């Protein structure tokens, strides 16, 4: 029996005004895997990522064609609840962006806005989310402290905890470690490996070593096209497309 894809993307095209940013992208993102998207700046990987939770809808003068299903349901269908979609498909940004509030309030923000499921204790949910984001031990003694006083690496894990608090199915990460030092990066990578036991993760990264270290599958984007998509080990040892080889070995890009 084949595993049902979390996301099935079929012939996705995306335009910013007259400029085509994505061309005929088709791929399947499987559950509880880490899928890394690599490629030079402007190749469309972040645009693609933002299509997966309709974050591009907020950008004027854009158009999209093709189909993206999340567990079989078309996320661009007219009856899609975008708020619910973004709660199921969380996004972690390049730079940590905690709210100027306490650590507790940052994590509690989503559940408060979306409403807590009956019988759920907010304090427990916050603790559980911080534990899952491997931050609990570092902040447990002062949850009322300002989030902005945390180190950048801690702030990024706080943002991950904030995403986890609304119980998503998928976590999208757009260069989540680009502002972090190697130790903080290592912590986030280790966290990703743990999280993939429960969540589907899609990460955009400029670090090919990071893609090689953490992901199960890697997709190489170039000029809006998905040039190659395969097992990460295959991509980094014997890619089948010359352009992929040229990019990952530094011959262009």
């Amino acid at each position: 029996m084949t595993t049902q894809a979390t996301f099935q993307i079929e012939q996705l095209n995306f335009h910013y005004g007259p400029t085509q940013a994505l061309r005929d992208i088709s791929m399947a993102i499987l559950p509880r895997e880490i899928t890394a998207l690599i490629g030079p700046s402007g190749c469309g990987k972040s645009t693609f990522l933002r299509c997966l939770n309709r974050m591009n809808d907020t950008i004027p003068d854009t158009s999209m064609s093709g189909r993206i299903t999340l567990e079989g349901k078309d996320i661009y269908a007219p009856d899609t609840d975008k708020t619910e979609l973004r709660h199921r498909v969380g996004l972690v940004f390049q730079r940590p962006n905690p709210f100027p509030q306490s650590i507790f309030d940052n994590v509690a923000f989503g559940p408060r806005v979306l409403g807590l499921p009956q019988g759920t204790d907010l304090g427990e949910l916050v603790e559980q989310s911080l534990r899952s984001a491997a931050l609990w031990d570092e902040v447990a003694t002062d949850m009322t402290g300002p989030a902005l006083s945390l180190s950048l690496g801690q702030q990024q894990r706080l943002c991950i905890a904030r995403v986890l608090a609304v119980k998503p199915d998928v976590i999208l990460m757009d260069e989540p470690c680009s502002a972090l030092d190697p130790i903080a990066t290592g912590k986030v990578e280790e966290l990703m490996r743990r999280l993939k036991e429960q969540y589907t993760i899609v990460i955009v990264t400029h670090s090919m070593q990071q893609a090689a270290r953490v992901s199960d599958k890697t997709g190489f984007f170039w000029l809006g096209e998905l040039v190659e998509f395969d097992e990460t080990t295959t991509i980094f040892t014997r890619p089948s497309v010359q352009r992929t080889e040229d990019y990952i070995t530094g011959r262009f890009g």
Partner: protein
Amino acid sequence: MDSIHVRANLDESLNALTDELVRLSSKIDTAVDQAMRAYSDCDVDLAQQIIAKDANINAKRFEIEERCLHIMVTQQPVAGDLRMIVTAMNIVTELERMGDHAAGIAKLALRVEEVPKRDIPNGIFQLASQCRDMVRRALVAFTQRDAGLAYAVADHDDSLDNQYRMLFHKTVAETRDASKSTDHLLSVLFVAHNLERIGDRATNIAERVIFMTSGKLTELNV
């Protein structure tokens, strides 16, 4: 400043690595050639020189391995570059062992000194010439990234093995002849065996060249 070539450092390192391997293979070729001469001429001095030089070959092997590790650590190569370096590490091990085989033949040259009326079969020199040729061609396949030539090297190993088997049976049969020195015939067998192993190692290099060019790990001449 002219345009920046981002791979310049890596390309230089890979080229230097290739040059080192070619130089080492040339040393092996010389060692095998000289070992056969020392054996056929009972040249003790030459044999001792070859045995002494084997230590240099062993040292060179570690130097080349260090070079590979340095490239891996500093450049984090992937794809074709990674396969090339992994291949280089395999090749250097095969070359070093070939050096051991040459030294093995030289050690036999030290022992045959006292055997009178030595009759060295011509086939053994043909074996030597062919296995040296296989090593040279395996290295060309590596430097030229020529999978076709690598397959040809492996094919040639079948013929080398057949010649070795014929020589082996003929020599074993001669041991029943009381007029012939068993020590000498055994030394012929040992020399032939060392040469046959060099052929096998050339085939191993060919397998690695196929891995380097295609990414496929294959065993040739199973």
